[in-house]
């Protein structure tokens, strides 16, 4: 009962402190939100990249140009073999007949003027094609697949830009490495900033803390208002950060949708579900409590020896 009253008083005190100096606390919250926001943006970017990787755009396509003499049976044979390749190597494939290819070519804006001049529709010179969407960017696996498929009967020619595959892979691993590192860095910065916030709060209240200890206050009596203060600051910062990210994500996704055609289709920033949102808040709060605890111990050790 008394514990509850104490919590209630400390809760009220934290809000009174914040409302008395709204601008100053807003600045504090803004800085926290900035850092939480950068952490969360990194997380979201990583997630989104993973999602994007799962779509076809990110892995190289293989074009299997078949021999002019290939017939329906040959094609079915090749399809059977493709079906047996592990799902994490080939995601799917698509057969495009020479007729389809010609029609597409004639509809293609860029090719039209050339195609119309040079191709006689009655004597289609194009080959049948199998477009294979791979499911990996690992260049060694792709190279192996390449050799394997090129030995199939009736496969005339395989196009696979290994360079491209290599580069995409590098890019993705580089981005995710950078973003993971940045996240770790920012979690460090976040704990430093929370530590500093608590330390400053203790310095601003140092008279009250000293006098309280002189008349017998326990550690928990002194820590409790700091916990309340820090938890509310961090929670408000978290909400602000989520709000900003939500807004930014929506805008950027809009943008990506507009320019999708230019820069590769399907990229989209993922947003948090309510469960994830709650979970992340919990993680941040536990982390805050831990940081406050360490900060208080540290400051005690360095100044209030009694």
């Amino acid at each position, binding site marked *: 009962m008394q*514990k509850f009253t104490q919590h209630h008083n400390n809760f009220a005190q934290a809000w009174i402190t914040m409302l008395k100096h709204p601008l100053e606390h807003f600045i504090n919250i803004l800085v926290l939100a900035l850092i939480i926001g950068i952490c969360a943006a990194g997380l979201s970017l990583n997630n989104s990249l993973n999602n994007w990787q799962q779509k076809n755009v990110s892995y190289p396509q293989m074009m299997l140009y078949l021999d002019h003499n290939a017939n329906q049976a040959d094609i079915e044979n090749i399809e059977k073999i493709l079906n047996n390749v592990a799902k994490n190597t080939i995601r799917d494939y698509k057969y495009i007949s020479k007729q389809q290819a010609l029609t597409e070519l004639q509809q293609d804006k860029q090719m039209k003027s050339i195609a119309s001049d040079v191709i006689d529709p009655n004597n289609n010179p194009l080959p049948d094609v199998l477009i294979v969407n791979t499911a990996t960017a690992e260049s060694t696996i792709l190279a192996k697949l390449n050799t394997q498929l090129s030995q199939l009967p009736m496969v005339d020619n395989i196009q696979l830009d290994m360079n491209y595959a290599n580069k995409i892979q590098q890019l993705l691993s580089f981005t995710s490495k950078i973003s993971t590192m940045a996240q770790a860095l920012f979690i460090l910065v976040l704990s430093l900033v929370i530590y500093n916030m608590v330390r400053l709060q203790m310095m601003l209240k140092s*008279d009250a803390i000293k006098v309280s200890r002189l008349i*017998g206050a326990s550690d928990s*009596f002194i820590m409790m208002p700091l916990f309340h203060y820090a938890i509310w600051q961090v929670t408000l910062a978290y909400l602000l950060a989520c709000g900003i990210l939500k807004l930014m994500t929506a805008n950027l996704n809009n943008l990506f949708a507009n320019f999708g055609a230019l820069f590769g289709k399907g990229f989209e920033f993922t947003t948090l579900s309510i469960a994830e949102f709650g979970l992340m808040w919990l993680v941040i709060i536990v982390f805050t409590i831990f940081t406050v605890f360490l900060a208080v111990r540290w400051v005690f050790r360095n100044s209030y020896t009694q």
Partner: protein
Amino acid sequence: MHDNKIIKFQHVSKIYTDNIIAIDNLSFDIEKGELVFLAGHSGAGKSTILKLIAGIETATKGDILVSGTNLSITSQNYRTFIRQHIGFVFQDHKILFDRNVFDNVRLTLDILSKYSEKEIHERVVNALESVGLEHKINSRPEQLSGGEQQRLCIARAIVHKPKILLADEPTANLDRANVLKILELFKKFHSSGVTIIISAHDESILSDYGKRILQLSNGRFRG
């Protein structure tokens, strides 16, 4: 016999940094319920003795026993805990300027965290009345005169009815009428069984009371 001595100093010395000997091999006992005056010149060691009893400072040599507990071998946390049962009137008041008079006094009760809001209010009002500050209950400390601040500090020290009351120059900023009032208050406490130690540089106010006076000079007893 042991039970009767609530405070025991056994060959206690306190040497601060730079080899400043504030207390020099001092031994004395104080009985439960006694009222003792601690007199001496500026720098004699009066405040140091009171801080040692409250566990705010630790002895460099010797043993200090408070209610049978040897402070020299207890943990810091326990020494802090002991202070919950002591009232301390600080020489420099140590009033908190970030809260009003009422909240300054209630701090002592908050730390004990065993009173309801109603009890807290009653006790604080009583304490302020006994030092003549009831009309300043909602004032900020910076709105009080020097003597009023001193009385506020006394109210904070007595609000939880401690077993031991240590008062460091509690009347330095008070005129004679107020001094008499505060001393009356202490005597009333004394008669209800509280052990009280009062330090003062001004022997004239002490002589009338016929109580034990410890005369300090440079960290030793005079005479």
